[in-house]
């Protein structure tokens, strides 16, 4: 059974039209992450939540926002997508402090910007 579920799997949007990607988890993990992965590149951390505490990476553009309304759900909002934002967006979770550092990834949401 899928433990980290991302929707939609494929999203097509127009240049500048806001888009929201969602992630849900059944693992009850404290931490949820959003990564951006462009074609043939490494995943790049955008930000993460430890419970309700939001942690933004220094080089994440302001165009990217996130919300975590409860433990199970986390959203990635791209306010004005540009062509350079076309990528696979990966959600991941991990337990909190003191336990294994394993990240559990979803299958990703592939964003196309026209």
């Amino acid at each position, binding site marked *: 059974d899928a433990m*980290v579920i991302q929707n939609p799997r494929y999203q097509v949007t127009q240049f500048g039209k806001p888009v929201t990607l969602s992630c849900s988890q059944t693992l009850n993990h*404290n*931490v949820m*992450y959003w990564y951006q992965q462009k074609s*043939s*590149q*490494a*995943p*790049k*951390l955008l930000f*993460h939540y*430890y419970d309700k*505490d939001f*942690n933004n*990476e220094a080089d994440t553009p302001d165009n990217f926002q996130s919300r975590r309304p409860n433990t199970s759900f986390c959203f990635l909002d791209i306010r004005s997508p540009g062509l350079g934002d076309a990528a696979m967006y*990966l959600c*991941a979770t*991990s337990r*909190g*402090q*003191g336990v294994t*550092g*394993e*990240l*559990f*990834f*979803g*299958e*990703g949401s592939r964003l196309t910007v026209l």
Partner: protein
Amino acid sequence: QQQVKQSPQSLIVQKGGISIINCAYENTAFDYFPWYQQFPGKGPALLIAIRPDVSEKKEGRFTISFNKSAKQFSLHIMDSQPGDSATYFCAANRDSGAGSYQLTFGKGTKLSVIP
């Protein structure tokens, strides 16, 4: 310096052979070194991981070798199988002290195991 350098970019190995992927890092604050396996259209999945207090970890056909003084670590896949064909990412974690794992990934190695 947050970079993790991974090589080779692609690798072709015959079935039954040994696949070796290398990674190097510069930040001595990294404290956890996982390898992730990613199949096309799927998210990465943890394969094996090591902490810097050991020099080697083996799980089945997969072994991590870790050289702390050289700041290098490598993945060895013994008896490589066609089902191992995937992209492999090394990664390193910097401990934020807050319980979250902020991984820096290498650029990945696309492994093809041919029959």
